């Protein structure tokens, strides 16, 4: 494992792409800066240019005008193939090579770069542990056909990280997974990201996934224009225009609530301050506020109680607090 985090910024500088044969740009003058170590989600409806934006970075598609820089260097400074070897790339169907074992799949870019065999193998082992496919010997020599969809995606992520690239591109990587597996793999990846901290551009059409995963989110609208680029909180509370508001949907209020947990609510009343006929459900402190609201509704309760570390209720949060988040005094 590298000690210093090897990670760079990605800067889009009026990046534009017009495909031959069409008048309208697929991406129109995108200018955003992804900070080092940040996970930025690109979302939007189809035709918004999010996949195009991603593919411009590793030059699977070439810029019509504008520039993209990784670190200080423009992506056009070095040949495309060399550039791609310095960028981690994970795609929806994982694209694992069916004829290679898990270990060989993970080690493909390092071996192409000429790393020595033992170094490649050690690195692959390290990554299998990172993505949670342990004990390593059980997984190393399997073929992709012997893995489930979720396991394949994890190998795909390990493969993208293998050569320790400064940036990562992920193109709807969890889109083909069933919802339960998707949640697990998302959590796994967030854990990886906390450990490894790579600058990541993550394309998804699922706004909930973007809110869950992204440090910041860039919403692209049809015509390849940037609608808004902000943190999830800002996006949900201050949508820039009608398009964003509509894209976030009427549930954006609730979506915002999923950004917080019960432990984020301070100055709560004591656990016995309950009202109404139905008993208030007792939930762990890491339950999201949204889920707390949902469970309250399910029980017909006027609030929820918060469980302490010892498992006994220590506080009570009425519906008004669940909705407002901040206590009346601090407003």
């Amino acid at each position, binding site marked *: 494992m590298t000690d210093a985090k090897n990670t760079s910024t990605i800067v889009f500088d009026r990046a534009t792409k017009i495909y031959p044969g069409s008048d309208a740009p697929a991406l129109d003058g995108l200018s955003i800066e992804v900070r080092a170590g940040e996970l930025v989600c690109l979302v939007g409806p189809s035709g918004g240019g999010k996949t195009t934006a991603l593919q411009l970075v590793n030059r699977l598609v070439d810029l019509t005008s504008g520039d993209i820089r990784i670190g200080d260097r423009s992506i056009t400074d070095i040949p495309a193939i060399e550039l791609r070897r310095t960028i981690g790339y994970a795609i929806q169907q994982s694209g694992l090579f069916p004829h*290679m074992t898990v270990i060989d799949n993970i080690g493909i870019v390092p071996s192409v770069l000429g790393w020595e065999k033992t170094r490649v193998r050690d690195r692959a082992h390290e990554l299998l542990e990172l993505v949670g496919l342990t004990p390593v010997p059980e997984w190393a020599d399997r073929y992709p*056909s012997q893995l489930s969809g979720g396991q394949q995606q994890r190998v795909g992520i390990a493969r993208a990280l293998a050569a320790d690239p400064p940036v990562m591109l992920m193109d709807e990587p969890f889109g083909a997974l069933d919802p339960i597996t998707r949640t697990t793999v998302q959590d796994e990846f967030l854990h990886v990201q906390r450990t490894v901290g790579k600058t990541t551009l993550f394309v998804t059409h699922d706004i909930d996934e973007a809110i869950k995963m992204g440090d910041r989110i860039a919403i692209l609208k049809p015509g390849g224009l940037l609608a808004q680029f902000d943190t999830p909180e800002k996006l949900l509370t201050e949508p820039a225009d009608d398009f964003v508001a509509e894209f976030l949907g009427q549930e954006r209020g609730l979506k915002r609530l999923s950004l917080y947990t019960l432990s984020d609510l301070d100055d709560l009343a004591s656990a016995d301050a309950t009202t109404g006929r139905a008993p208030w459900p007792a939930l762990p402190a890491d339950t999201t506020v949204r889920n707390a609201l949902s469970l309250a509704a399910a029980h017909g309760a006027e609030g929820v109680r918060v469980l302490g570390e010892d498992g006994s209720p220590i506080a009570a949060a009425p519906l008004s607090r669940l909705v407002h988040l901040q206590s009346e005094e601090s407003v």
Partner: protein
Amino acid sequence: MSGFAPSGDPIIPDYGEVSDCVTNNDFFCTDWFVQQWPSVFWPALLDHILMTVIAIVVGFAIAFTAALVAHRRKWLTAPFSMVTTFLYTLPPLALFQLLVPITGLSLLTVEIALVAFTLVLLFRGVLSGLLAVPDDVKRAARGMGLSSQQVLWRVEMPLAMPSIISGLRIATVLTVSIATIAAFVVDAGLGAPILKAISSPFNTQFIGAGALAVLLAFLLDGILALTGRALTPWTKASR
């Protein structure tokens, strides 16, 4: 000058007794077959193997190259397909007749014809194998920074192997079969005893040679199948 030398006094060899089996032209006279093995059947078998192997090796070299070119330049697929299919549909004897005036009664004539028959099977085997590589695999490979050559040789070729082996197997069995017709051009291969045994029908000879041809086809097919499995371990992997 007289055209007739004084008649010599030849020593006429005794060619031995004939078994009843041979006289009655029974279905298969094992003794006769075993006795004739070293001088007739074994050399014929070796020649047959040689003719087949040469044809497959040359045919594969041509078809493989053509398939790679057609893979790069898609528009060539149709013309190549048409030519190789046309060659395949020619009746073997007719092709031999066309070639003999040009290349003579020689191994070259035989090989040109045999190679012509293998091309469409091998071409399709290689090309369809390459085309069957999943798009997401190719996209991932490109996106990760493998050059086109690397994608071709490290990813596409190995994945095309099952189809290539399949084409080789069919082409080999076909070649073993058609090579028996080579006896019309060259007195070699397992077709020679068959041809000679037809005019004055002698069952053991053509059944023996025919059976050897079938066994040879099975053997070569089996060898290729095993080779294919050794080269494609991932196809055996089970959940």
